[in-house]
């Protein structure tokens, strides 16, 4: 069994969101970077669990990014995984990134490709589906449970107002969210081991970009909260009915 987990670098969930260069670039000054939580907590940890169950499993990580992504991929390796591949390219176009991952997956002949459900910065939810299409593999999005028996996966995915269980034969691509696994904290042995694990850097494959970011904007500031005294909650209901016209 060969598993590839896609790892993305994102700003910390509490990072201040601001833009520079005439609102065309994210302001990275003072920003703490983390592994995209969905990639780390769910995709990577589920892959680790599968490897723990079947130690013959080969587990590789892939990221598409410039050299400053390396601390993040080392952090991911501290949780586990045999080696990492960094495609040396910097892009915000989902198709371009997916094309790079698909190329790595094709060369490595992986049985399973895991992604997080989305990144917390660009919120595209697109990479998994695109990679699956480029590889002509089945794709289950937004998985909340993933079980494997031989080469058949039983995957539970979220649907509107419920869940659906699907059976799929490998190879396949899965995007993972809460429920698939429980977040872990790397231990000292893992952190030490990660320093010497192979981190291969490869040049990007030729691929097009289909979109580009023109500019960013921040949402207008809220007017401020209108507080209603605690001894007069009826006033809140009146405001919601007559002013906000929402109930």
């Amino acid at each position, binding site marked *: 069994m060969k598993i590839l987990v896609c790892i993305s670098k994102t700003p910390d969930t509490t990072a201040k969101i601001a833009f520079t260069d005439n609102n065309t670039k994210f302001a990275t000054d003072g920003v703490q970077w983390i592994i995209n939580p969905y990639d780390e907590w769910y995709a990577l940890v589920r892959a680790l669990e599968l490897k723990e169950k079947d130690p013959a499993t080969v587990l590789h990580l892939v990221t598409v990014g410039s050299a400053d992504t390396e601390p993040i991929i080392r952090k991911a390796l501290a949780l586990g995984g045999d080696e990492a591949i960094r495609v040396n390219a910097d892009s915000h176009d989902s198709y371009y990134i997916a094309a790079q991952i698909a190329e790595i997956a094709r060369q490595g002949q992986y049985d399973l490709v895991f992604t997080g459900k989305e990144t917390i910065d660009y919120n595209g939810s697109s990479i998994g589906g695109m990679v699956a299409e480029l590889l002509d593999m089945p794709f289950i999005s937004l998985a909340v449970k993933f079980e494997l028996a031989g080469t058949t996966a039983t995957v539970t995915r979220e649907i509107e107002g419920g869940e*659906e269980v699907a059976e799929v034969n490998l190879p396949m691509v899965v995007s993972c969210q*809460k429920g698939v696994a429980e977040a872990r904290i790397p231990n000292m042995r893992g952190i030490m081991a990660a320093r010497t694990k192979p981190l291969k850097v490869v040049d990007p494959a030729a691929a097009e970009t289909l979109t580009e970011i023109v500019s960013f904007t921040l949402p207008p500031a809220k007017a401020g909260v209108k507080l209603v005294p605690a001894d007069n*909650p009826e006033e809140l209901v009146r405001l919601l009915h007559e002013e906000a016209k929402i109930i």
Partner: protein
Amino acid sequence: MSVLIFADQFEGHIKKSSYEALSYGAKLAEMMGTSAEGLVLGTIKDDLSSLGKYGVNKIHHVNDASLDHLDAQQYAAVIADAVKQLQATVVVFSNNLSGKAVAPRLSARLKAGLVAGAVALPDLSNGFVVKKNVFSGKAFAQIAVKTDIKIVALNPNSYSITMVDGTAAINNLTISAGSPRVKITATNKVSGAVPLGEAELVISGGRGLKGPENWGLVEDLANLIGAATACSRAVADAHWRPHHEHVGQTGLAIAPNLYFAIGISGAIQHLAGVNRSKVIVVVNKDPEAPFFKAADYGIVGDAFEVMPKVIEAVRKLKGK
């Protein structure tokens, strides 16, 4: 040249989020001076011609039972064929759970640029530029699509439906659907409840409610106004409420018209999942709770004293 809107279904019924996509696509077609046409896959129980009231002229229906369940791979292949047959130049999806599965596949298949999570109509004054949510609701990006065929996936609850008088003509489209590679073995849907992602009104509870036995305060208000119920991460982690009710950065991101939070402090990770709500109401006994900064209306007070009175006032208002 046309705008093709994928109207997705579950168990034969078109989803509400698809009505928004149809209405959005109809307006976009009007801006482009072209026709708006819907695309429906699988066996349908609804009257498809009535979808004309969302402004589409025509519904193309691939009436093939092998498409009754979502297999993203099969769906993308069929939709790609339809795009080619009908020479569509823009494809609109709802960025709902099926849209997230299918739109990226279609984008890669057709090499057509995708904007996933659109929140407004495209700006056509200089190319095709679509505003989308980024940084988990904390900012927007304007994305230019550079390819001839463009794909837009519209975030649920971000575009207001406009109704018109009209019926859509039905065209049975024949496209070889192949067979799904994904076998659905079980579907567990909470029957009767409003799906959280589609709900216009949401009542949500946090740790301040002290335990699952107190959820009557959330449920009573929700039942009175037809709202869905939600909860914070702490509540889902403590198993007071099912995980599918968890909203926030790591749960579901929602954008209802009303988000009513009871006993939730409003950590930044929670706000990331709800900050696109149109009206936010916060009831919390801590005046320093960060949620008040993001709220439109609030009461600083004990939920156990405040909420019964709120519920009573709503009951009177609704005459129930």
